[in-house]
């Protein structure tokens, strides 16, 4: 397999993703945060393309950047954000939170260093031409549909989420 995924594109895309994620959590105005999150998710879609997953890249763009972020921006128009600049940005326990995050970072570093030896060296030859077809066969196929029952449960979950969102937003709770 010829390497489409050159190191330059990897460092470029992951740098964009991480920098815009840092911008997202440091902006005061949530609209700016939402725009930075869109940039981060689009860079993540580029990383999916480099991993030979074009269907997941399309889902990332359509569902995250197109659906969820539009919903966030719509909700920001409903809530009042005028008094953000006079209030404090961080809450009271932010030092403890940063310490806990540093401990989790150490744990993840240890896990990655220990687990690096156990990964298989051989990569699977993923078919990028018929990626969508292969995923569809895993979801719906008669013999290969391992994920048909979880797919039905996911549709039930989305139904419950729609009903819950309507009930929460409609009347005075």
């Amino acid at each position, binding site marked *: 397999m010829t390497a489409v995924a050159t*190191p*330059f594109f*990897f460092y470029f895309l*992951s740098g964009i*993703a991480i920098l815009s*994620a840092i911008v*997202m*959590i440091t902006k005061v105005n*949530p609209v700016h*945060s939402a725009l930075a*999150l869109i940039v981060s998710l689009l860079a993540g879609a580029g*990383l*999916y393309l480099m*991993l*030979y997953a074009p*269907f*997941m890249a399309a889902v990332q763009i359509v*569902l*995250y950047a197109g*659906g*969820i972020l539009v*919903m*966030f921006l719509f*909700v920001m128009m409903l*809530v009042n*954000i005028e008094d953000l600049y006079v*209030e404090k940005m*961080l*809450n009271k*326990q*932010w030092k403890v*939170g*940063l310490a*806990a*995050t540093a401990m*989790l970072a150490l744990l*993840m570093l240890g896990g*990655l260093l220990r687990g690096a030896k156990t*990964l298989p060296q*051989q*990569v*699977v030859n*993923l078919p990028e031409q018929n*990626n969508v077809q292969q*995923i569809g066969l*895993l*979801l719906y196929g008669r013999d290969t549909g391992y*994920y048909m029952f*979880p*797919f039905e449960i*996911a549709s039930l*979950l*989305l139904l*419950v*989420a729609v009903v*819950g*969102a309507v*009930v*929460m937003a409609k009347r005075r*709770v």
Partner: protein
Amino acid sequence: MLEIGIMHYLVVGGLLFLIGMVGVITRRNVVIIFMSIELMLSSVNLNLVAFSRLYGLHGQVFSLFIAADAAAEAAVGLGILIAFFRNRATVNMDEVDLLKW
């Protein structure tokens, strides 16, 4: 430059997860906390897709389920946010104490 392996993607996913966790723990605005949760879910998706490079397509199918889960979570969470804003007229996380008393 050295060859890009699965480990690089796992490190990027871990960094995005940690940034999202810092956003969840330290910020006061509920909307930004929800966006940080979306970032954490997306970084987990990146890990799963990176592992599907090693073990076949099952990781991509599972990350599809996580994406559906993220959509459901965002819908319900923003509905709760609207109901909370209607009651308290704020989006400050420190004011969310209705279940405390």
